[in-house]
């Protein structure tokens, strides 16, 4: 224990990662009935965590990867360790999580104000922050899995935050169960590794994979199984439908968990053991296919929905698909970089949408547009910034990361992935600007009769008047994120250097971790190198034009004067319906669950229990009882008759034996 206080780095890590847990406990046990204090505690502790994360990043920026570990328990030959692993990737992610969680919690001060479950909300936010931070800096895959599950638990509680709403609790359940499906694969993969390799330490795994310490079969099998976890958590095909449903939660939750950090955990885990995955060509190809399919499917869904949050949810899924594509095609840095920028601008988009939703009490972009959404200037500007970043327009952060991904994809021998990536970029730009134009340039202008006018004055005054504190609590985080989205892209090279740097630092970890990282560097450099060789100007032009093309199409349909505002897909109702119903995936799951599980197995088993097993037992009982009844006729109650029989029998027996 003393070591924690002696080592400032360890102290900051432990404090930053675990403070929210105690906050949660304190809120749940003591300050439930004092929402104000609860929120202050929670925001305070997450601020401390964020500061810890930033200072760790600053302090360890040039330091080698650090590993702390202690034995958790031993069972047989299994040594389960608990530890923290601080390398550039985890530090980066820790900082992202800390900052965004902090911003979102500040934002929630406004958004959730007056909610009856205010304290509960902050308790679960703290639970999430704790789990997510611990997951990020976990030293072993098992520990990662544990906090991965805890993150899912926090997500379950936060999605179902409005538990009076059936759809919300249903969505929470769906999220948890679908995640569980993926997690079981993950779990099995871990068990396989545990049995085949015996050690789940992240550096050890990476090292073993890159030095062929693992047999190819084991590696592929476990990589594929572990990838199931990514599919679940990062909502990849075929488990992607929980994420749009998860939008039932409060908007800040969607921003934090279901776009910026938690769902990115899958991608993070992928990059965490990237050398391990890259040891298996088959697994990588599988991931590439899954990522591409996900990206395209969810983009298509985003094109038809009118729900603000749903658009961003589908978009999140598709961007996660992008990241998986990048990683699966060897673009370690591209994936991580897109993860970083995406966290920023997608949180931004959600938080802006949250302001609209909070203001207009609807999720429908058409109604928001009509009621004067564009009059909310700060969120309108910020959401446009976010959309530009998402669409990959220079100089916003999304541009840089998307270019990085496209260059990696272009380096793939099969150009189909690159084409899919480009197509995805077009779709992304299209659906995000479809939304922007809906709000900015609503059909038939702004209806002047919306309820805000009753108070008189513009909506801006209204904001000042009514909820100054609330509005600014929401606006400031949004503006900070917008600023970040604006500048983060320019930090590409320092970041790349930082993420890739640890390769060149000979530290104590070089012994077992160095080689792993070299592989990363090698693979990544290869990818980047290819990209650059294969003509970056060409790539640049293609990437930018894809984004612009999407925006242009959106403008044609929704933005320009006299536009139909229906979308080209509305001409083909079948496809519209297909996209709108999520390619019938939900229908399929629902039907499957209902017919196979509930109507099939469950009722069969229940029937079996009641009729066959219990029936059999009861049958035995009835037989016993019946035969007892039968023989009870002998029990005439006439004592002497019984005696007589007894004596006669005894006498007869004696006679038989004697004579």
């Amino acid at each position, binding site marked *: 224990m003393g070591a924690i206080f002696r080592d400032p780095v360890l102290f900051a890590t432990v404090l930053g990662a675990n403070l929210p847990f105690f906050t949660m406990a304190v809120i749940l046990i003591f300050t439930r009935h004092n929402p104000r204090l609860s929120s202050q505690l929670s925001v305070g502790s997450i601020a401390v965590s964020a500061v810890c994360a930033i200072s760790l990043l600053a302090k360890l920026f040039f330091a080698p990867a650090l590993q702390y570990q202690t*034995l*958790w*328990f*031993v*069972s*047989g*030959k*299994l040594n389960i360790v608990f530890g923290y692993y601080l390398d550039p990737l985890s530090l980066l992610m820790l900082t992202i999580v800390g900052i965004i969680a902090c911003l979102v919690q500040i934002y929630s001060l406004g958004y959730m104000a007056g909610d009856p479950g205010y304290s509960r909300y902050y308790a679960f936010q703290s639970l999430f922050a704790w789990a997510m931070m611990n997951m990020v800096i976990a030293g072993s895959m*098992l520990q990662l*899995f*544990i*906090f991965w*599950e*805890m993150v899912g*638990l926090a997500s*379950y509680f936060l999605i*179902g935050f409005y*538990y*009076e709403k*059936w759809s919300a*609790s*249903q969505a*929470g*359940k769906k999220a*948890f*169960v679908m995640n*569980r*499906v993926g*997690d*079981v694969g993950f*779990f*099995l993969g871990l*068990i*396989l590794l*545990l*049995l085949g390799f015996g050690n789940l330490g992240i550096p050890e795994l990476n090292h073993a994979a890159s030095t062929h310490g693992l047999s190819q079969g084991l590696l592929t099998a476990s990589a594929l199984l572990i990838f199931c976890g990514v599919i679940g958590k990062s909502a990849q095909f075929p488990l992607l439908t929980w994420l749009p449903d998860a939008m039932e939660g409060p908007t800040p939750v969607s921003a934090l968990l279901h776009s910026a950090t938690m769902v990115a955990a899958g991608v993070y885990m992928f990059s965490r053991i990237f050398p391990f995955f890259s040891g298996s060509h088959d697994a990588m190809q599988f991931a590439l296919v899954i990522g591409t399919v996900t990206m395209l499917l969810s983009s298509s869904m985003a094109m038809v929905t009118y729900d603000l949050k749903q658009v961003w949810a589908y978009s999140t899924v598709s961007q996660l698909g992008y990241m998986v594509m990048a990683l699966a095609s060897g673009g370690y840095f591209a994936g991580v970089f897109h993860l970083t920028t995406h966290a920023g601008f997608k949180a931004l988009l959600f938080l802006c949408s949250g302001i609209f939703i909070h203001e207009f009490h609807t999720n429908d972009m058409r109604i928001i547009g009509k009621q004067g959404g564009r009059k909310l200037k700060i969120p309108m500007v910020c959401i446009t910034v976010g959309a530009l970043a998402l669409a990959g327009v220079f100089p916003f952060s999304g541009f840089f990361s998307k270019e990085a991904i496209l260059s990696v994809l272009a380096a793939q021998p099969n150009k189909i992935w690159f084409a899919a990536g480009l197509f995805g970029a077009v779709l992304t730009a299209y659906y995000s600007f479809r939304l922007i134009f809906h709000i900015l340039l609503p059909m038939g202008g702004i209806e002047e009769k919306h309820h805000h006018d009753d108070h008189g004055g513009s909506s801006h005054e209204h904001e000042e008047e009514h909820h100054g504190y609330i509005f600014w609590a929401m606006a400031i985080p949004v503006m900070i994120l917008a600023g970040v989205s604006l500048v983060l892209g320019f930090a590409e090279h320092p970041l790349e250097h930082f993420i890739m740097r640890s390769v060149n630092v000979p530290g104590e970890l070089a012994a077992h971790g160095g080689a792993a990282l070299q592989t990363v560097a090698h693979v990544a450099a290869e990818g980047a190198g290819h990209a650059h060789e294969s003509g970056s100007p060409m790539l640049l032009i293609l990437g930018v034009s894809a984004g612009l093309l999407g925006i242009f199409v959106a403008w044609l349909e929704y933005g320009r004067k006299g536009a139909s505002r229906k979308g080209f897909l509305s001409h083909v109702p079948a496809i519209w319906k297909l996209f709108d119903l999520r390619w019938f995936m939900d229908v399929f799951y629902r039907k499957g669950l209902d017919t196979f*599980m*509930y109507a099939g*197995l*469950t*009722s069969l*088993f*229940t029937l079996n*229990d009641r009729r066959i*097993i*219990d029936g059999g*037992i009861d049958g035995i*009982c009835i037989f016993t009882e019946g035969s007892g009844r039968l023989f009870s006729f002998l029990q005439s109650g006439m004592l002497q008759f019984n005696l007589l029989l007894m004596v006669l029998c005894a006498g007869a027996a004696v006679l038989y034996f004697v004579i």
Partner: protein
Amino acid sequence: MTAMNMAGFPILTTILMTTIVGLLVIIFIPPEKTKLIKQVSLASASLGLVLCLWLYHAYDFQKGGLQFVERVLWVKSIGIYWFNGVDGINLPMMLLTSVVLFTGVWTMWELEHRVKEFFALMFLLVAGVYGVFMSMDLFWIFVWYDVSLFPMYPLIAIWGGTRKEYGAMKLTLYLLAGSAFILPAILFLWAKGGGHTFDLFMLQKIGFTPYVQNVAFLMLYLGFGILAAVWPFHTWSPVGHVAAPTAVSMIHAGVLMKLGAYGVLRIGMTLCPQGAVYWSHLMALLGTIGIIYGAIAGLGQTDLKYVIGYSSVSHMGIVGLGLATLSVNGINGAVFQMFAHGIMTALFFSSVGFIYDRTHTKIIPELGGLSKTMPVASSFFIFAALAGIGVPLMASFWAELLVLTAAVKAFPVAGILACMGMILSALFMLRVVQRTFYGEKNPRWEHIPDVSKFLAVPRVILMSCILFFGLFPKVMLDVIQSTVIPFVTRF
């Protein structure tokens, strides 16, 4: 037997005596003085708890083996010993028993109907349970085992709920049917061992022939398996639990079901290692079926206690699967799961019991939206449900991890199927949670008060137990494996 350490002070007998003295004192208190009866019960239960905690603390796991041994020859001609001792397998069970008894007594604080008889019978039941766990003599194990079965009938039939006579009768008949397998098996082993000792460890040294081991193990497995709700002998579990009053469900599901698994481990696998190897596939098969079947059948239930009953079937399947692997991790996990499930299911039943006391219904569709009116009581149930799902950092997660790891190694197909059980258990627990606690506020329950601070204490104790052993599994695993590691060398 070199590792056997004689105890100076007969701590185990003292623990047993806390219940028996409690029972006697209660018998001599006039029935009107319910408050005094409850206080005496709680005092004797807490004395047991303190002694068990001390025992747990004092057990030297580095040395391992049987400790705190008391061994006195009782009947010379057939070799019955008063032979008690603890090792890493029964120590967690003793702790579990004391915790569940303590919280169970506290949970029943509001009982009004025939208080005296209730607590007297409950202490008799627990005396039997303690006896089985601490005894190392086959004769005494069987005697205590039956002592623990007998009070179940009146406890359920008098204080029970839904279809109590049927439930009580079914449960008792099932369990006695189990006894009918166990007694011949014990006598068979005793006779084959020369007929001059019931001492478990003396019999162990004899080394039975494979045939004897196969037969005896199967009988013991079936007999004890009924109590452990091994599929297809599980149907008493939902029915019996539905009928039983809260504390009885807690003790029964929490502790008594563990007697079954413990019996298989303690008698079956100790005396018949070859038999265990021979039947391990059967055990793995039934365990896996139990895991899947319990979860799926639980999906369709509408009675809260039925759901928990089926979840117990599923969780005890994990124990069965763990034992079947005959490996360090599997048995570690199985014993740990026995402990974790005991605590968890006690929490389940105590929260359901509270809800039932207040609302007088356990039917899920009638309950909906309970979270609004009783947030604390609901959170206890939800916590238990999460533990049941196997959320990490709760005790049962580690148990499942260990068992599944061992199972995937020993029986890959069964292991993978059992993993699928994790999905099902999540689905079915969350479904119950959703339907019972979430949704619109139900006007019918609007004026029902939430759980009071006083009655929250036992539930909080159980919750903290789950969390403590989830965060620090070492505390338990060190103890368990000190015995399990030498144990598995004989397979």
